[in-house]
């Protein structure tokens, strides 16, 4: 089953870490990524740019209207995602629980990815 792991954290939290903590965080991420590669579970993923780079589209007076970031006041943002193909939901949850952002007040959402295939009923 494919799951998308959405990484939510507080913008700028990495800047507040000490150099050692930062190195540790990146090393942890590297080691999880390597494990996913080795086990053949990695499907894809991206980190997202700072929320100040965001454009938001909403309807206004019946037309799509675009507004810019920054959203400095945002307490939490979607920082990135990774898609894994694991044998069980439990394994996907385990990967999410080890993601270091969780320890620093962030959160992970594990979402099942829809398939384009189906069976007649």
């Amino acid at each position, binding site marked *: *089953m*494919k799951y998308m792991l959405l990484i939510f954290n507080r913008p700028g939290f990495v800047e507040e870490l000490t150099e050692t903590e930062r190195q540790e965080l990146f090393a942890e991420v590297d080691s999880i990524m390597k494990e996913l*590669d*080795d*086990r*053949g*579970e*990695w*499907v*894809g993923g991206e980190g997202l740019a700072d929320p100040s780079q965001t454009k938001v589209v909403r309807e206004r007076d019946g037309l799509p209207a675009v507004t810019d970031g920054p959203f400095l006041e945002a307490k939490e943002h979607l920082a990135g995602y990774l898609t894994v*193909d694991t*044998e069980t939901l439990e394994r996907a949850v385990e990967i999410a629980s080890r993601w270091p952002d969780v320890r620093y007040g962030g959160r992970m959402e594990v979402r*099942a*990815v*829809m*398939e*384009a*295939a*189906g*069976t*007649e*009923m």
Partner: protein
Amino acid sequence: MTDPLGVEDLLRELAPQVLGVLVRRHGAFDACEDAVQEALLAAALQWPEEGVPEKPRGWLLTVATRRLTDQWRSESARRDREAAVAAWDPAASSSGPEPGEDQPGDRDDTLTLLFLCCHPALSPPSQVALTLRAVGGLTTGQIARAFLVPETTMGQRISRAKQKIKSTGARFGMPPAGERAERLRAVLHVLYLIFNEGYTASSGPDLHRADLTAEAIRLTRALHALLDGDGEVAGLLALMLLTDARRAARTGPGGLLIPLTEQDRTRWDAAAIAEGTALITDALTWSPPGPYQLQAAIAAVHAEAARPQDTDWPQILSLYRLLTRVAPNPMVTLNEAVALAMVRGPRAGLDLLATLDGDERVSGHHRLDAVRAHLLEKAGDTGAAREAYRAAARATTSLPEKRYLESRAAGLNGTD
């Protein structure tokens, strides 16, 4: 992909034969499998350009052996084995049986390989990937595309599976007689999984997966040729043929799912139905009925009805009851409830479904809600049917199923 020379079919057929010979000569399934894969890739590039060699199997054996030698030569830690391989003259492959000639070992090798790839130490997804590569002769890239993962990821999964087999110390040979029945069940399950992966695929990016159906049928056919006295192998082949016969009728424009009762039955594949029906009819005369045979028999009863209202539901019900006895499983009970509803009315079906309510294996499963919705709709309880369709739509991870269930729910709006 165009393949005027039939190169791909030929390679897939030769793949397990070449691998079998190589493993017998050199041991090391792991390394031999890589070498054969490389030889297949080389052939897939060269043969369409330069023509199929006169002795295609000898060609593949020579190239694979050379790759194996190169591989071992580059690993200094394996010097003794290198000596053993180097002492063997690759040209000697032509002194073996001519390609196309039936070598007694070939047929057994395919079976041995299937048993090895479906080793109990591996998880089903790994068994599937390894079987497709080592027995099916598919490339890692093809398997990766079929399962919609990056090629490196699939490659890693396959090499891990091989490492795992190696670590169990499994040998290249038939499993002991006492384990064979159990191991054959695992092989059939893997073939069934491959079939289903392909069968549920409908359109768009999933087309690569649809090829898996044909591959599963091809491998099961090969297995049936080797074990024609096994009723379950015959049953599985029949089930695949009878199910795949509905392919053209089961989806509408945009991949929309069409339920069995609403399918245009003139679009069912009559030849596949005839073959599947003959297979299962024959098997049931001499084999004790196992789960695949019973499912095939049910599919055959559906297939013989020219119109949905001609379906022999009492017979389907008794087959499901038999299946429940042979292989009790809540998914079987779900189908039994549908058949029961057709024979005794929707309330009887709903009562049977209620027995599954505490069953953890299906609670919250979209199929349970979907069947319940269907029976509630038949019973005229529109409001509850709509809720059950919606619950099923939320629970499924399949887009076409979700669309189908949502449209059933929407169809009930304002009718209660």
